[in-house]
Every structure is written in structure tokens, then in C-alpha cells.
């Protein structure tokens, strides 16, 4: 019997995206998250006394140029060398693009497969054979798995591959392959990388995406880590997921249905927050909060969304201290159906807003208001995941819907109680 670890997509020193710091936010906790997750990987390997560690690509971020990141990697991998644990891996698309990998000298316990052909590494003492092929260029569109050799008889065969498999949303379609191709090789385990959401594509033999070791933005939610694979004497592998992440991203939805006022919503949020904190009591949880549903608090909230976002953040500081961070608050509430609208000039204003919402071309006209800003916005803003363009009619429609209660408050609400 022996154990090994399958990890992938470590993306060392890749920052956690767009975490707008605010008063009371645990800013120190989010730094170096990918490093600490990798340290957890190394510690787990040593504690579990694994026979070897497989890394299925993307150790680094492609456009990250700091050689310190490489040196840090070497220092960590050296700990595995001292524990007598080999590290076997392939370079992924990011590694191929990275300038760090070109000059980095790895300790002798590290073996990376070549990119010009598939290669095989034998661990004679264990009776294990690993097959793999690295990315030579950032964009590999061919099926690399086709060229992998057939299984070596009498051994436990592990295939290491950086691939999009049959294609996964949000991931570049690199080195595509079919499950048939993988199965046909007769391997005992396929260690895949590239797709950040962990997934077992096939149970027998296991064809597995380990996912990344640390979520880096609001769409990489839930526990992140590696698979600890135990191979029994009959050569049967058993998978056991080990969480390694130090910052946990979650998408929290607060159901606003029937809430009578905004404070009700804050109370509901507190409950939701506590349930998320219970899920990961030892980690920092980063939440994207979506408040949705039909509520009479809609106007109150949307008339001053900034204020209510601050209320949610301060409730978080209050309840969770340094254990949680609010990345963003998205209000998707609706006013109760059937509320009648005022007439006269104000009615004309509301009618105009409704008219705009229904006409995308008119809506685009509003973007001229934002043209100056669009020119000045930094490229990071435009290139970020979930980036939006200031002339996108759908986004403008959302903004208009948000602007409506705000405008109505300024026009009318403040007069309610003279």
C-alpha cells in the first residue's frame, strides 16, 4: 500500500482579486494566500508520508514575473526532498508562458516531463509508472493524450495531463481530449489539471481534476485543495479530498422575500453569515453577498445601496471579526408587485425610465454620460474577470434600475416626515 497526492493549478503568488479593503476588514489575512495553501500541501505530504506528489500543471501565473516566487517554490519543494518525497509534474499553459520557469533550477527530487514528446518515469521501488507531457507553448490546441504510451504491465500507471478535457466553461480550450482516449490507455489513475473546479470525470479508472489549491476570486467558491490517493496492495486507488485553502470564497444568497424593512435584511444576512462561518471555522471566509427576492425594503435599500453595503460589512465585522470579508454586495431585489405609481411629472419620469429599460438602443445612448470615464479606466479594470464595459446595454439597464430608487429618494423620500 502507498499514498500519493494529486494537486494542480497552484498559481503561486496570484493575488486574490478585487478585494476592496474597508474599515475592519482583515487585510493582513488575504496576503500570501496561495503560498500558505502550498505550504499546507507540503505539510500534508510529509504528515501523510506520501510516496510522491503529482502536480498537473500551472505552478505559476503566466504573466507573473517575480523570480522570488520561483525561489520560494524551491524552498518548499526542498522540504519534500528532505522527507524523501519526489515531485512529478507537467508544465501547464501558464507555466509555459511564465518567465520564471525558464531559469529556475529545481532540486533533484523534482521531475518535470518534457514538452516535445510524452515521457515515462519509473518509481521501481513502488512499482509505479508515471506518464506525462508538458506544454511547450502557452496555447496547445492539440490532443496531447493521444501520444501518451500504453500502460506498462504489472505496474500502477499514472497519467499526468494539463487539459480542458472535453471543454469547461471559463477555461481556455487547451489540449482537449475525450474520456475514451484516456480510458483506452489502460492507466490506473489520470491526474488532470487546468480546470479550477475539482471534478471526478470517471470513477474507474479515476479521471480527476484536482481543482486549484486556493480560490482566487468570487467564482472560485468552496473548499480548494488536493486529492490524497491511497493505493491498496491490489492496486486499487481510493480518493480522499484534502482542503488546503486558507481563504474560502463563498457566494452567499440572502432571501429578501417578505422582509419588511432593510434592518430585517441585515438580520437575515447575519444568520446566513453564521452558517458560512460554521462551514469553515478556522479559515477566513470571503463572501459575495447577493440579496434577492420581492420585498417592500427594495426602495429603501436601492435608494442608498452604498449605505446598506456598509451596514452588511459592519455587521460582518461585528459578528465575525477577522474571520470574514465581504467582497461585494449585489442587490437583486424587486419591489412588491402591484404598487401603484404616482402620476403627473413624477409619473412621467418613471414612465421614461421604464421606456429606457425596454429599449437597448436608447439605453446605449446613456453611455455617452460615461464616455470620459471609460477612456480613463485602467486596463486591469477592463481585463479583470467579470469585467464590464460602460456601454454594455445589459449593465446599463441594471444600473438604471438601481438609479431609479436612488433618484426617487432624492426627489420624494426625504420629504416624508417634515
Amino acid at each position, binding site marked *: 500500500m502507498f499514498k500519493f497526492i494529486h494537486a494542480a493549478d497552484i498559481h503561486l*503568488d*496570484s*493575488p*486574490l*482579486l*478585487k*478585494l*476592496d*479593503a474597508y474599515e475592519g476588514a482583515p*487585510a493582513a489575512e*488575504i*496576503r*500570501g494566500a496561495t*503560498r500558505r495553501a502550498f505550504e499546507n500541501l507540503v505539510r500534508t505530504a510529509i504528515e501523510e508520508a506520501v510516496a510522491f506528489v503529482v502536480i498537473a500543471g500551472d505552478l505559476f501565473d503566466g504573466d*507573473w*514575473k*517575480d*523570480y*522570488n*516566487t520561483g*525561489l*520560494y517554490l524551491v*524552498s518548499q519543494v526542498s522540504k519534500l526532498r528532505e522527507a524523501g518525497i519526489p515531485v512529478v509534474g507537467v508544465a501547464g499553459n501558464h507555466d509555459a508562458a511564465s518567465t520564471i520557469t*525558464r531559469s529556475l533550477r529545481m532540486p533533484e527530487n523534482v521531475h518535470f516531463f518534457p514538452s516535445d514528446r510524452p515521457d515515462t518515469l519509473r518509481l521501481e521501488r513502488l512499482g509505479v509508472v508515471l506518464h506525462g507531457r508538458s506544454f511547450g507553448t502557452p496555447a496547445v490546441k492539440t490532443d496531447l493524450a493521444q501520444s501518451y504510451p500504453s500502460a506498462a504491465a504489472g505496474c500502477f500507471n499514472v497519467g499526468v495531463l494539463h487539459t480542458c478535457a472535453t471543454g469547461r466553461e471559463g477555461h481556455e480550450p487547451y489540449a482537449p481530449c475525450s474520456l475514451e482516449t484516456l480510458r483506452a490507455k489502460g492507466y490506473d489513475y489520470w491526474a488532470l489539471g487546468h480546470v479550477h473546479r475539482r471534478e471526478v470525470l470517471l470513477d474507474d479508472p479515476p479521471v480527476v481534476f484536482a481543482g486549484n489549491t486556493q480560490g482566487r476570486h468570487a467564482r472560485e467558491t468552496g473548499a480548494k485543495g488536493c486529492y490524497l490517493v491511497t493505493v491498496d496492495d491490489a492496486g486499487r486507488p481510493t480518493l480522499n479530498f484534502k482542503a488546503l485553502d486558507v481563504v474560502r470564497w463563498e457566494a452567499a444568497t440572502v432571501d429578501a422575500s417578505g422582509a419588511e424593512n432593510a434592518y430585517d435584511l441585515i438580520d437575515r444576512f447575519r444568520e446566513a453569515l453564521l452558517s458560512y462561518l460554521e462551514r469553515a471555522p478556522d479559515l477566513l471566509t470571503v463572501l459575495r453577498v447577493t440579496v434577492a427576492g420581492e420585498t417592500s425594503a427594495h426602495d429603501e435599500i436601492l435608494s442608498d445601496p452604498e449605505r446598506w453595503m456598509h451596514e452588511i460589512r459592519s455587521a460582518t465585522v461585528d459578528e465575525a471579526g477577522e474571520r470574514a470579508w465581504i*467582497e461585494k454586495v449585489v442587490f437583486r431585489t424587486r419591489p412588491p408587485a402591484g404598487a*401603484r*405609481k*404616482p*402620476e*403627473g*411629472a*413624477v409619473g*412621467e*419620469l418613471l414612465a*421614461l425610465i421604464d421606456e429606457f429599460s425596454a429599449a437597448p438602443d436608447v439605453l446605449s445612448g*446613456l453611455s455617452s*454620460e*460615461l464616455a470620459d*470615464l471609460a*477612456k480613463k479606466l*485602467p486596463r*486591469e479594470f477592463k481585463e*479583470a474577470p467579470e469585467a464590464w464595459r*460602460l456601454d454594455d446595454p445589459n449593465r*446599463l439597464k441594471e*444600473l*438604471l434600475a*438601481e*438609479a*431609479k430608487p*436612488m*433618484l426617487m429618494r*432624492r*426627489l*420624494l423620500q*426625504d*420629504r*416624508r*416626515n*417634515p
Partner: protein
Amino acid sequence: MKILSLDLIAFGPFTKTAIDFSAGSEGLHMIYGANEAGKSSALRALRQLLYGIPERSTDGFVHPFSKMRVGGRLRSANGEVLEILRRKGRTRTLRAADDQTAIADSTLEAVLNGVDAGFFAAMFGIGYEDLVAGGREIVRGGGELGRLIFAAGSGLADLGTVRDGLQAEADALFRPAGQKQKINDAIGRLKQLRSGLKDAQLSGSEWARHDQALRAALQAKGGVEAKLAEAQRSLSRLQRFAEAVPVIADRRETLSVLKSLSDAVLLPVGFGERRIDALTRLRVAQNEQGLARASIAAIKKTLSELDDPSVLLRHADPIETLYQELGSQRKAAKDRIALESRRNMLRTEARQVLRSLRQDMALEDADTLRIKKPEAVRIQELGAEYERVVTRIESIREKIPEQEQAVASVDARLEDLPRPQPVDDLRRWLAEAGEVLPLEKQLASLHPQVRNLLQVCTQSKAHLGLNAASLSDDSRLAAPSIETVRVFEDRWDSLERRLASLKEDVRKAETDLSETERRLDESRLAQDVPAEADLATAREIRNRGWRLIRRTLHGETLDGVEVDEFSASFPGAGSLAEAFEASLRGADETADRLRREAERVAVKARLLSDRAAFHARLVKLGDEVAAAQSDKEAMRAEWVGIWQSLSITPRTPREMRQWLSDFNVLVDRAGDVWKREAEAAELTRAIDACRVALRRCLQKLSIPVGNEDALSALVQHARRVIENEDGLRRQAEGLSRERERLVGEVGAAKARLKILEEDQCRWQRQWAEAVRPLGLGAGTRPAEANAVMEELKSFFDKLREAEVLRQRVAGIDRDAEAFSSSVAALTCAVAPDLAGRPVEEAAAELQRRLTAAREVLSKRQALQQQFNQEQTKLRTADGISAEIESLLGVMCAEARCKRAEDLPEAERRSFQRRQLEEQLGRDEKRLILLCGGSALEGFINEASAVDPDGIGSDIERLKEEIGGLTAEKSLLDQTIGSARTELGRMDGGDEAARIAVEIQSILGGIERDVEHYARLRIAGRVLTLAMERFREKSQGPILRKASELFNRITCGSFEGLRAEQGPDGHPVLVGVRRQGKEAVAVEGMSDGTADQLFLSLRLAGLDHYLDANEPMPFIVDDILIKFDNARAAAALQALAELSGRTQVIVFTHHRHLAELAARDLPGSVLIEHHLN
């Protein structure tokens, strides 16, 4: 919606104060209250009734928040009445009039017709501040028409502020050329961080360069270190040789001297000291021997001179015992005298006591007087009981007469009480009256209500123009339904609009026609323009001329008449040819003019055709007007017809709709009156029955009552009688209970006295029995008996003590006897010479002799011990002397000497040999150190071979070489150090990653701010567009109405308002004067005029709103305080006019405004309310 009443149940300063707004068709309600009368509170209450009391209310200063209540009745547009009560709270604050049943918010919202709080406040409320702010906004906005129309249509005075606020907030976030705005600033910081990131990032090649430099330096350092080691080895070897040369020479010298001492015996270290020590000790031992022998002889002589003490020592123990007893004997003899005298004294005292008790009795017979312990205890117990029994008996004997006196007193009071009378009947009827009594109050309040209602009904009938005949429920049937009236109203309005529109059309057509005529005249006056017909005429004439000429050319003779006729058209033409020429010229000229003046021609043609068309249109419009008029007449006839049954001449349907509503209220009220009258009759009957019965009962009890006394008076009488009787009965019962208690107490006291007296007899018997042993009679008092017992006890105690003393004296005499015989026996055995001496003396002498014998024994023992010691010393000295002599023999043998005297020479030679050998050892040890591990002989040979004169220069050369190599190594160490520092700095640190996180943080902030900025800009844009759109749609009616109102409210100072092109091309509003010739920009208006302009616009906007929507009450809060009387009156007129369309509620605390309104407005419109 109309507010029918406002009930200030518990709100602000008000408690249960109601304001009735139901009067009037819609009504202009003027609420007057002096300062501090609660006008503002009432105004707030009105709004908060509809939309809730705010969390932080300022109106809880009298009533606590939990008790705050404001109620009211509202009538919706479809006539339904909703009665509500508002409490303060967060949820479910709306209740029905009972303050219990919850009312859903939606029920009220239906009545409010979707008008929420903000919209209500803006659209249907105006206060002095609003007015001033509105006026100021108008001036500030330069009369921007879109904004003013929108403000008029929404009631929002501060639109400009809202729009500016949006802009200012957006500007604080971002400006295209800004630096400090939030987004600009973030972008700036982002740029800085980007450059920081670049600096913090370490490139792979830099690391490789430092790594390479380190490796090269380490390798070079290895080479230098090897050379350095070799040079240092050579230097060390030469330095050793240089040091060894003198040592080798010294060694050689030592070896040659040693050879001459080869036969000297090497004696052990300390041999000489041992020898001297042995000789010294031998002399000491010989001295000791002499001293010991002399001492032994002296001791033997002393011993032979001492006595033998053995006889006395054998009897030592008995002698000592007797001597010790001698002390006791002496003390006992002294004690005996004291004891004897004490005993005699006690016996004398006892005898005296006995004599006081029994004169006759001897001391020896006194034992018969001894009493036992139980007997003594019995006497004491009985003595104690005696006090108790006697005290109780005395206390009871005193109490009995007091209690008997109290019984007699109660009997007397009972006798004095009056007899009670029967009141059961009265009580029953009083209970009955208790239920009927509230009816009397109800009846009292019913009468004025009925009177009031009747009065109101009468007034209403007069107001409605109905004759004085009575009303019945059927009256309602005679009146047309509200739906019918609405149908007529719609028809009426539509016909009115049609007629107005037709008249407008006619006026427009007439204007257009006269304008067309005017322009035709103008064109004619300028110069008649040729028409196409003129050209055709000219050409026809010309053609006619040509035809004549052609006929002449064909040789035809022309008829003179034809030619003359033709020529006549051209005066001055002499011939046909001339005439033709003239016609040709005329046609050409006409054609030329037509071409030249084509435009004028066309205008004229159009004017002509227009004129025809306008004529036709006017005819058609005339027909339509006639048709519409006849429709109107027909409808009016029909309208009058449906009211005939009520003998009413109807006014307009709109007015009659209100009339009908008031009529229905009237019928309801009349019904109410009948119901209440019936109710009053029923109540009177019930009350009278009760009164008769009560009066009868009271008279039976001889209570004087009047026949007309009210029920409440009778009830009071009855209650007093019953209370009186009940009081008497309660008093009698109390006294009886008291007497019973006292009699019982007297009986109990007597019984108790009897028992105590029996106890006293029993005690007497027992007492006589108990004191008899003391020789006392039954009459003895307990205290006397106790004294006798005390005396007896003292007597017997003395006797017992005297007996003890007697026994002790006898013991002392016995001991003295035994001592004397023991002394005599011992004297006889040990010292017969003492026989016959007194006992005490003999005993003392024996003791003295024993002590002397003991001293002799001790002296003999000491001398014997000294003798033994001297013997031992002598033997030891002999041993030592022999031992030393044998030792000296051995030492001589060791040093190979015959006698002890030869030993010192042998010792000297041994010392010299040892010193030389040690010198040799030191030399060789030094050489071994210098030879550095090689064999000693080899090294000596090698060193001897070296040239001693060249060795110095070789050493100097090597030292120089080593210096050079050391410097080289130090340089390499520096290189290594700096490369290691550089690489150490590249420690895998995360500074760059940290900056990347910071960049992301800023991006997050930018995203949030961008969204907010976008919302603000979009809101601003939409608001501007909406203003423009509303202006386009509503400018006409609002401006027309506002113009008219402005004219009236400024009392004709302005003719009206007009839209003009502003300096930037946008339409602006101006005031008009002097038949439209003078336009006054809003900036040129005084503050007061601007306020009046705002009011005109607001009222016009409201008017426009009411065209399309259901009415809502318009709340006016003291807006007229800065208007002069004429303008204030005009404004009130305008409000009164508005009150025809919707309810208008005006709050004021200015009496002159209230008076102004009362003076100028008809009573049917103005309804006054006063707050106190």
C-alpha cells in the same frame, strides 16, 4: 379622496380633539390657531394619519409614544368611507375606530389611490418654506422652462438642488482632468503601485548573474587556500630547525658529565630528610625512658601511707537513708503543733452553732440532726411553689370585678340603640334602577343631538334649495342616481369641450381669413401682380392681332370694325401693325413679369386659394356650432327633466353631483333623527317605571320625596336610607358579640380561682410533712426553713474537718517512733563509740564519717591509675629506640655505607647525578617537539646539516609569500560575501505579491465607485430628459393656467406669462406687461413676485394633475404671510376656486388672513375651524 374628520385623540398637545372636515362640496377649510395652539402638530397629525408616525416623533411630549393616537374618516373617490386610527409603531399601526381591529395598509392605499408619502408631501402640500424655496429656485434657474413646468407638475420646488446634488456627487467621484476625485485618485495610486510592482519583481537573469559570481569566487578561493597552506608548512619547518640548533649542543655537553657519575647510587627523593628525622627521634625516646622510671618509685611510697575505709563504706546506704529522714522528722514535729491548734478551734465553733440550734444537745449527740439530700430538695421545691400559687390567686381575685363592670357597660349601650326597619323592597328596586340609570344620561345627550341634527337638516334643505316639506326615505328614490349624473356630467363636459374647441376653431379660421385678406391687400397695394390669366388674356389679344395680320397677308380685306375693335385696345396705335406690335410687346412683357415675379405670383395664387378655403371652413364650422348648440339645448332639457320630481332647477352636472352627495347625506341624517327620537321615547318609558316604584318604597318608609324628582335623585335617597339601616344593624351585632365575649371571660376567671385555692391547701399539707425533720412547725415560712438548713450544713462541715486533723497528728507520732529505733541499731553496728548520744546527733555524726571514708577511697584509686600510666610510657620508649636503630641499619645498606656517619656523602653524589639526567630529559623533550613527528635522531642529523647562516633569509621570503596569498583570499571573501548578500535579498520574499494584492484592492474600490458614478450620471441624465419630455407634453395647459393665475395673484401687475427663447437656445419663462410689449425675466422679479410666480405654477400644475387623476386634499401651511392684503385675497380666491375640484385645507396662525378669507369668500365655500 376627501378627509371627513381628523381626530386628535392623543397627539402633540391634543387630547380628544376632533376637526370636522365633512362640510362643503370639497371645501376650503381654514384652520386658524394662535401661536402655540398646536397648528403644526395638527398639520403633522394630518399627514401622519395617512402615512404613519415617524420613529423619532416630536409629538410625544404629552402622551407617551405607546398612547399616541390620531384618527380620522376618509371618503374615497367612489364614495366609500374608511374610518381609521393610527398608532405609533413599526408594524401594523393602522386600526379600526375600536383601536383593536387591525386594518391592512392596502385598504388605506386603495383610498389614497397610490399616492405615497413622498409624493403626497410634494404634490399636495405647500408651506411657507416651500414657497420661498420655490421662488428662489425660479430665480436661480433663470426661468428654465423645463424645470419650472416639471416642478409645477410634481410639486418639487428643489429640483435644481437635486440635479446639482447628483452632479456634485458624481464630480466628487470622477472628473476627466481631475486628480483628487476618488476614482482619479485611485487610478493615480494604481499607476504608482504598478511601478512599485515592477521594482519589487526580481528577474531570473539577475539571480543567475549573482549565483554565477558566487560560484566562481568560491572556486578561486579554494586554489588560493591550497597555496597558502604549502607556504605556511615550509615556513614552519625552517623555524623549527632554527630553534633546535642550540638545544642539540647543550645535550651533547650534559651526556659527557653524566658519564663520570655512572657509579653514584641514585637515592630516592627525601632520603636525607628521613635520615635526619630518625636520628632526632632516637634522642627523644632515650629521654622518656629516664623520666618514667623516677615517677614509678615516688607513687609506690605514697600508697603505703594511706588508711582502710571499708567498714563504713559497706553501711553507706542505711547511713544515708537515715540522714535524709532526719529532715522530714524535724518538719513533721513542727507541723504537728499547728494541726493540733486548728482542730481545737473548729470544735469550739461547732459547739457554738449547735448551741444556737439546740441548747440542750451535746456535740457527740448531734448526729441525729443530719437530714437526707432528697428531704432538703423537697423543702426547696415546695418553697418555690408557694410563691407561684399565692401570686396567681391574688391576681385573679383583682381581675374578676373589672370584667363584671365591663359587661354592665355593654348592656347599657345595647339598650340605647334604635330599632331597625325593613328595607328589602327598596333594595330590590334600587338594583333595578342601577341598570336604568345610564339610560337617563343617554336620554339627556340624545335630546340635543336630535335638536342639532334637525337644525342641520333644516339648514341643509335650505342650502340644497329643497322646500320645507318633510323628507322620507323615498326622497332618495326620487333623486337621480349618481351614475346618471356622471353620465350627464361627461356629456356636458364633452359638449362644452366640443363647443369651446369649435369656437376656438372659428376664431382661428376668422383670424386666418382676415390675415389672408390683409396680405392680399398688401400685395395688391404694392403692385398688382400679373396672374396666369393676365398672360392668357394678353396672348389671346396678340393672337387675335396675328390672325388679322395673317388674313391681310393672305390678301383678305379686313372688316374695319374688327380692326378698330382690336386697335382700340392699344390707344396710340395708328395702324393694325402698330397695334399688333403693341399686343406682341404686351404679351411678352406679361410673360416676362410672370417669370420675373413668379414667387409673388405663387404667393398671390396661394393666398387666393387660402381665402376660398377659409370661407368654406367658416361655413362648415358655423354649421357644426349650430349642431352642437342644439345638442346642448336638448341635453339641458333632458337634464332639467330628470330633476322635476324633486322640484329642483338643476345647476351643472358637476355641481349637481356634489348636490346629490350632500342630498344623500341629508337623507341619511333625517333617518338618523327618526331613529334617535324613537330611541328617546323608549328610554323615557323605562325610566318612569323605575321612578314610580322607588318613590312608593321610600314613602312607605316615611321618607319625604317629590313627585317630579329625577331617577338619579331617588336613587340617591334610596341609597342613603339603605346605608343608614345597614349601619344600625352592623352596630347592634358588634355590641352583642362584645357582651358575649366579656361574660365568657368572667366565668373562666372564677373557675380558675377555685382550682388555685385547692392547689394552696394541698401545698400546705405537703409543707408540714417536709419541715418536720428540721424540728419546725407547719406555720414555718419557706425562708425560715431554708435558714435552718444552711446552719445545719455549716455545723456538720466543721465537725468533719476537725476529724481529719486528728488523724494527721496520730500519723506524725507513729513516724517519730520508727526513726529512733533505726538509728540505735545502726550505731551499734558501725560506731559503738556513739551509743547513748541523742538520736539526731548520732545520725549526723554517722553521715560525716561516711563522707571522710569516701574521700580516702578516691585518693587511692587516683594514685593507682598514675602508676599504670608511667609503666606504659616506659614500655613505649623502649620500643621506639629499638625500631630507629634498626631503620638506620637499613638506610646504610641502601646507600652502600658501613656506618650512619657516611650517609651524607652518598646523598650529595646522588643529587648531582639526578640533576644532570633531568637536564638531558628537558633537552630531548624540546627537540621532540621541534621534530614535528619524525624520528629524533633523524631530525638531529637533518638540523645539523642545515646552514645556520642561510636559514633567516629563507624564513623572510616565505613570510612575504604568505602575506600576498592572504590578501588575495580576503578579496575573494568580499566577493563571496556580496554575492551571498544579493542572493540573500532574493529570498523568495512576497513583496511583489503583496503589491499585486494591493492593486486588486484598489480595483475593487474602483469598481464600486464606477458603479456609483454611473448610477449618479444616469439618474441626472434621466431627470433632465424627463423634465424636457414633461415640458413638451404639458407646457400648453400648465402655462395657460399659470399665466391666468399669475395675472390674478399679482392683481394685474403682470398680464401673464410667456415662453421665450433663452440666451442659450433653451426656452425660458418670462412675465408679460404692457399689452405683451414688455417681457420681464425672472431675475428681474422681486422676491415676492417670484414667490407668487411659484404659487401660480404650483396651482396650475395641480389643476393639470386633477384633469387626469382623482382628487387628493391639498394642504396649505401659511403661505400667504408675506403677501399684501390685495394679493393674499387674490391667492385665497384662487385656492377657493381650486376647492371646487379638490378639498383644500389651509393652516394659518394669522388672524388677518382668516378675516380676509371670511370677508371675501362665500360661506358655502369657506369652512372655518379654530384650534384653542
